[in-house]
């Protein structure tokens, strides 16, 4: 049989030996480092993708946080502004009402004082008129009355009957 005749024991021996040596050497110095490197790289790619995804999520979360904080800040600003406005309004109103009442009081005081002054002036005027009347009466009568004070009273009485308004 040609197939068996072609079979070379020596070739078989060398082939087996060389192949096994090649297998052992390559396993140690080539396949292990190559497969290790490939796996390591695949793992690092996977890790990088995962961490990128995580970073993206983190960023999204941060962004959401930022938005929330911004919204909160805005709301707070609005309330602060509103409060400030209220305070301002209140202060103005207070000041206004205070000023109003003060002015009223001053006016009332002034009126009272005027009244008093007026009353005093009127009284004074009355007295002067009485004296003047007595002097006028003395002059008119030409003679001194015996009871000066009784006469004065009489004139004053008469004058009071006139309302000097």
């Amino acid at each position, binding site marked *: 049989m040609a197939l068996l005749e072609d079979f070379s024991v020596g070739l078989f021996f060398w082939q*087996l030996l060389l192949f096994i040596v090649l297998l052992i050497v390559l396993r140690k110095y080539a396949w292990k480092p190559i497969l290790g490197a490939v796996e390591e790289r695949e793992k690092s790619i996977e890790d990088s993708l995962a961490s990128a995804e995580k970073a993206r999520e983190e960023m999204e979360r941060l962004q959401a946080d930022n938005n929330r904080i911004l919204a909160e800040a805005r709301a707070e600003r609005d309330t602060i502004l509103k409060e400030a406005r209220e305070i301002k309004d209140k202060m103005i109103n207070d000041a206004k009402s205070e000023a109003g009442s003060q002015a009223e009081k001053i006016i009332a005081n002034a009126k009272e004082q005027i009244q008093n002054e007026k009353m005093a002036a009127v009284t004074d005027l009355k007295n002067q008129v009485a004296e003047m009347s007595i002097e006028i009466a003395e002059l008119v009568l030409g003679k001194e009355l015996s009871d000066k004070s009784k006469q004065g009273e009489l004139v004053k009485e008469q004058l009071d009957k006139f309302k000097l308004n």
Partner: protein
Amino acid sequence: MQIKRFGFFAFLFALSLTASAGDGHDSHDSHDDHGEKSIKEQINEVKEHHLKDSHSFHLWGDHAKGNSVEFPLPIILWDGQLHFFMSSEFHHQENGVVESKGSHFRLYHSKIYSTDAEGHINYDEEHHVTNEKPIDFSITKTVFSTILVGLLMLWMFGSVAKRYKNDLVPRGLSKFLEPLVILVRDDIARPNIGEKDYKRFMPYLLTVFFFIWIANMIGQTPLGINITGNIAVTFGLALITFFITQFSGKKDYWAHIFWMPGVPYVMRIVLMPIEVLGLFVKPFSLMIRLYANILAGHTVIISIIGLIFVFGAWGAKGAFFGLTFFLSIIELLVAFLQAYIFTMLSALYFGSAVEEHDEHH
């Protein structure tokens, strides 16, 4: 696509010319018989010479004319004691007989025989040589080429491995080889062996894949190397696959061979010898497939190259040149395919050996 079409037309063209060119050349060949060897005999010789292993590395030139360029390889023989000399010795001696430690050897039709001092070759009635043959451990052309392939692989993958030490990014040679390594891992080992066990078999699968592929590719060069077309080589490879399979066989594997679960007892007895036979048939098919494919490829290519010389017409020469070109490209594909199939089937066998069945069927 274009190559395919070109090859097809070349083939048609060659066929149409064969008929017309054939007649005129038979007479031409017979005419040549008187003087030199006819062209057909020469082609046959080249074919024989190429497909068989050789004890020296022939590069070019004609042996008979004495202008051949070749370099000698070491001869190592064992016939009770060890003999060692270079193959060039056969040409230096007058009658081609080399004397070593009292024994005489002669190279005859690329085989080494023990002879007497004069180098007589004895034949039986059917013209078979009856001389005794020493066991030939020579570093033949194929062994030498195997060493070259091994060194090439060591250099290639050694440098790739070294490159990865500093940088995980593949560059240069790694860029080319890494996809192939990943092909073996992801398309051959993982699906066939399974995620749990595939790592153990990776070194063998990678080595055998690249060894067969590179050996096949070197066989495509004009150096006339034919490593994987030797039955001894493919036998060696198949044997390793066989042993790895058997040694990694788990309980379930052996149970399926000797006592198939889930079938009637009578069938178990019938199945046992079939399964046992299957153990050996599987690696045997690996051996034959690779050997036959590569040998056939080489035979076809050499034959068609021979046809370029057989036919005188320039059209026929061109057509056969085109056909050779086309078939060479197919051979490149076959070189890869055979490496892939051998590795794939080895992985399949390993996978069946380590498989664990949960359910009984």
